[in-house]
């Protein structure tokens, strides 16, 4: 029999309710971005099996600087971010403008021409043109 997960109730109070209500969405989004950026660098370091000290060595900085970068509170310069991108082989800032993509659409057009074959004045039954005319007529009437 599968054991049921026992949910712990969330404690409610006015102080906590007021505290957890976000009034400044812009500030929240900024904090979120800073922390996600730190997490992105951390995950890239883990993928490359680099700890804080090794990564600091590669970047030519003191390990405490990497600690700041990963704290989610650091305000990076673009230079630092470009350096980190190169060392970790990741893309953090996308500066390439999206190319205007030319859309090529392939159309298949079927043209049917209804025409009355103009028979030459003098019919030569052995003439290849005449054979073609007959063939076209039969094709048109579905006789092939």
């Amino acid at each position: 029999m599968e054991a049921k997960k026992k949910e712990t109730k969330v404690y409610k109070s006015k102080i906590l309710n007021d505290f957890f209500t976000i009034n400044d969405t812009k500030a929240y989004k900024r904090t979120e971005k800073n922390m996600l950026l730190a997490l992105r660098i951390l995950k890239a370091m883990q993928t490359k099996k680099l700890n804080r000290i090794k990564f600091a060595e590669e970047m030519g900085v003191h390990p405490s600087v990497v600690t700041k970068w990963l704290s989610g509170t650091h305000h990076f310069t673009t230079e630092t971010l470009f350096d980190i991108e190169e060392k970790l082989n990741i893309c953090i800032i996308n500066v390439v403008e999206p190319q205007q993509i030319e859309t090529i659409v392939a159309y298949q057009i079927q043209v049917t021409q209804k025409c009355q074959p103009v028979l030459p004045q003098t019919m030569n039954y052995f003439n290849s043109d005449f054979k073609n005319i007959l063939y076209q007529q039969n094709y048109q009437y579905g006789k092939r």
Partner: protein
Amino acid sequence: MQVEIVKILSGLCANFYTVKIDGDSLTLFEKFISENKSKYNNELNNIRDRLKVMSDRTGARETFFKINEGTPGDGVCALYDDPEKKLRLYCVKYGTVVVILGSGGEKPKNIKALQESKKLTKENELVKRISKGVTNAFKEKYLRWSLDKTDIECDDDEIIIEI
């Protein structure tokens, strides 16, 4: 000292708890908010945002905390505000999924170690005691990890431990 552990923030990536001591009407974290609201409202808002992001998006990553603020291995760490780092909030972190928030206070720029501030030392000592109490509760099998290892639970409706 009797400590009730209560969950105050639940998210996909992490759950945050705080404690009520000896039947107090306010939890430690509520006291921390009340004590600092008038002077450090912006800093509190930043701490709130960081807690929410950890809860919903990133989990309680070690790098987001100031670690080793207690005795080795007890999980006691501190959370601070961005950018001025004026406040310290002591907490106990269990992996990236569970954090018990304690209290803390102002960290003046002119002090280096928490021992230089009576208030911070007191709050830090209390959080260290809570950490010890929680560890014992796990050892005695009163507390256990949920099946998916993302939360703590016990058989009682309220989590109450002795520290």
